[in-house]
């Protein structure tokens, strides 16, 4: 029976024609590059938004003519209005959390590398894969479209708390069609993520080449596999949340809108809904989302590090993988720590606090594995390794903030302060971005067949690393004085003394952003002018280095691969391909 099936599924030949080859391609490599490019564009959009916000915070009177041109209503004369600030903030969060942090390390690299790393010719469902990208793309277009409608983008934050997000334009500018488009955009993103993660899971389970047992999977593949599970279950809950929100807005239902609400002296025709239900549904997705973002980062760093330290990670694949599984599982039972002061039952706060604290144990194990793997190593400081080290440092700093926010008593002081903003920028924002950069520098030769410029790469790292700490450590520490987040201007008496600190952060953020243009230049220059990349420039062991750079259409040119080793066969400068039949050398 298996025979007939193999015949029934025809080999797919390399597609011909520009559209089939580069636009509506079913080749996972093209889709991976499409995802990566999409998130690169999204990242620069999101960064530009954060610049505008930071400039407004530090110098509220400064006129930015470009904003006045972009939105005559939101920034008349280039002077940003409070609602436009919040709109930019909402879109910064939405674009960064969904279209950059979820898309790049998971969908982008995952699509390109996962089938190659398991030795498959393509994903399990190539057409579904293509659909998943184009649905994401449509979602991104919808999100961007909000900038060009008269009322501008929504202003209810990336969390879109109801009833602010549910009652419609009475709640403020941007809450009309901007919020509708937002809801649809995120719903589309959910659908795309579901299709993507389903594809990842089946590919890992069913398409491993001969000899590649689960225990021999590269650590990045493991992380994507676990991540796909988390994402499969979490986005399944965000999808109905978005649908119910859109129903509330367009269908007149009251899932999230209670009775007796008065806007502009007008009683709203709603009753019986619950804003807390929205928060629960959102954070039931929202907290796993944080781990959907960070788990691929775990995987990338664990995958990259052994190459540059010349030895396996401490504890082999098991310790790090099981801590990832533990993190992924626990991520579903802790969402209430976002809601300690939200009016949730205070007893539930304790129920959520304990697992939240316990999630630090697998995280600490992962960090210890990375840090103590450096012990007795031969560290090579190529750019991917520097970014991995940067990731570890940032993740430690960010993780420490979690101790404060996991406890309801301390959170009741720190909630909604810039401490939280600093904390999550460290943990899920910058950590994931640094790991993504590590992956980018590491895999660029494989993806495009050219080496990246190491000098520019290192310069990019040093500026980014210092910049990130200047901005976000300051942000986190000012939160100790109670600086409130999501304020478009510092008017409170206790906020005014913080203006110098805010200006410092703004300047640092501008420099940090400017450093990213080095990266952009490096990418574009290396793509066309970089030296040709050998098949295995880093001396790594996994299957993606066992083929040409870039790989042919079916990844291995029809070769039968047989895997004999795990992914971490390193001993100093020596390394052993996973396909090598020689005996293992990773004796250490």
């Amino acid at each position, binding site marked *: 029976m298996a025979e007939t099936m193999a015949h029934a599924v025809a080999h797919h030949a390399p597609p011909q024609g520009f559209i089939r080859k580069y636009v509506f391609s079913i080749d996972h490599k093209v889709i991976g590059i499409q995802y990566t490019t999409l998130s690169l564009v999204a990242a620069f959009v999101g960064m530009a938004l954060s610049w505008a916000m930071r400039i407004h915070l530090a110098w509220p009177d400064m006129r930015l003519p470009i904003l006045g041109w972009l939105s005559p209503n939101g920034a008349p004369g280039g002077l940003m209005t409070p609602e436009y600030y919040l709109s930019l903030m909402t879109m910064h969060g939405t674009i960064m959390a969904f279209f950059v942090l979820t898309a790049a390390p998971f969908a982008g690299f995952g699509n390109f590398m996962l089938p190659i790393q398991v030795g498959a010719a393509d994903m399990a469902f190539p057409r579904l894969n293509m659909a998943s990208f184009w649905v994401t793309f449509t979602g991104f277009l919808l999100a961007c479209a909000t900038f060009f409608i008269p009322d501008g983008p929504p202003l209810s934050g990336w969390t879109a708390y109801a009833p602010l997000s549910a009652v419609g334009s009475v709640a403020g500018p941007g809450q009309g069609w901007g919020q509708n488009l937002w809801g649809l955009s995120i719903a589309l993103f959910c659908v795309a993520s579901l299709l993507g993660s389903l594809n990842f899971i089946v590919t890992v389970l*069913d398409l491993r080449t001969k000899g590649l047992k689960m225990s021999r999977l590269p650590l990045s593949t493991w992380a994507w596999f676990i991540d796909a599970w988390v994402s499969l279950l979490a986005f399944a809950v965000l999808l109905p949340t978005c649908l119910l929100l859109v129903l509330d807005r367009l269908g007149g*239902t009251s899932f999230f809108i209670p009775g007796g609400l008065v806007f502009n002296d007008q009683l709203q025709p709603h009753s019986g809904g619950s804003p807390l239900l929205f928060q629960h549904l959102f954070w039931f997705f929202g907290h796993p989302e944080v781990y959907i973002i960070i788990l691929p980062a775990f995987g990338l760093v664990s995958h990259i590090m052994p190459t540059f330290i010349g030895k396996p990670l401490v504890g082999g694949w098991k310790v790090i993988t099981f801590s990832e599984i533990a993190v992924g599982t626990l991520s579903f039972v802790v969402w209430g720590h976002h809601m300690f002061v939200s009016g949730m039952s205070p007893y539930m706060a304790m129920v959520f606090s304990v697992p939240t604290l316990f999630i630090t144990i697998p995280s600490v194990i992962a960090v210890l594995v990375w840090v103590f793997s450096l012990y007795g190593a031969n560290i090579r400081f190529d750019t991917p390794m520097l970014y991995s080290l940067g990731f570890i440092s940032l993740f430690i700093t960010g993780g420490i903030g979690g101790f404060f926010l996991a406890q309801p008593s301390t959170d009741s002081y720190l909630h909604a302060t810039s401490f939280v903003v600093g904390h999550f920028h460290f943990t899920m924002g910058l950590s994931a971005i640094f790991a993504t950069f590590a992956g980018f520098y590491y895999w660029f030769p494989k993806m495009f067949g050219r080496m990246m410029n190491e000098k520019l790469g290192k310069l990019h790292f040093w500026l980014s690393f210092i910049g990130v700490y200047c901005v976000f450590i300051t942000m986190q520490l000012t939160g100790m004085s109670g600086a409130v987040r999501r304020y478009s201007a510092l008017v409170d008496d206790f906020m005014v003394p913080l203006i110098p600190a805010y200006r410092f952060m703004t300047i640092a953020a501008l420099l940090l952003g400017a450093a990213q243009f080095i990266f952009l230049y490096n990418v574009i220059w290396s793509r066309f002018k970089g030296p040709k990349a050998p098949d295995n420039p880093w001396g790594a062991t996994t299957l993606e280095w066992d083929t040409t750079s870039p790989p042919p259409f079916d990844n291995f040119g029809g070769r039968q691969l047989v895997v004999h080793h795990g992914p971490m066969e390193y001993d100093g400068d020596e390394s052993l391909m996973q396909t090598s039949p020689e005996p293992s050398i990773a004796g250490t």
Partner: protein
Amino acid sequence: MNPTELVVNEKLASIEPERKEHGIVMELSPYGVDKKKLGMWMFIVSDACTFAAFLFAYGYMRIGAPVWGTPFGPSSIANGVLMTAILLSSSLTMLAAVRASQADDRSSAKKWLGVTMLLGVIFAALHLREWFKLIGEGWRLFYNPTGGAAQFGATFFSVTGLHLTHVVTGVIALAFVVRGYSQRRYDQSHVETAGLYWHFVDLVWMFVFPLMYLMNAH
């Protein structure tokens, strides 16, 4: 290949069977099912959570509401039981189609798929009848004519609407499967995967019916 060799090969295959994908020998799947079927299982897991979120929202609304309308009289319940029976028998006919396709009895498989689609359409029609009856009585997404919580309409129409969407999608998907199967582009694995989806739609109804109909019977 002489008969003895064949026997030896079969024995070897039973000890370490090989699976090929694009002509390359792959590691065995721990699940031992076709990848389409495994993909469908993943979809089902995720879709079950989506339905669950809807039903939990319904439960939440209902616990929080001071008064809750219970609009279903005996005729609606009878209609619901009939719908359940139809969906359940459609699951059985689907099963018959899968078995026929596994026995490579193509005409019988197509016949059973056709019956399944027909039952799906009848189910959708009965469902819409119930909807129009409620709408005729004044129930809306946002309005409760009996003066209770407006959430009844919202939850009922959205949950059953989502289920109805699944049924209609299923019927359309089955139509595609029948077409591909008659053209011999699809094999029994496609029928089996479609069948899995169809059973899942039935499975969801097993919760929707008691929670949305029976819990709202007066």
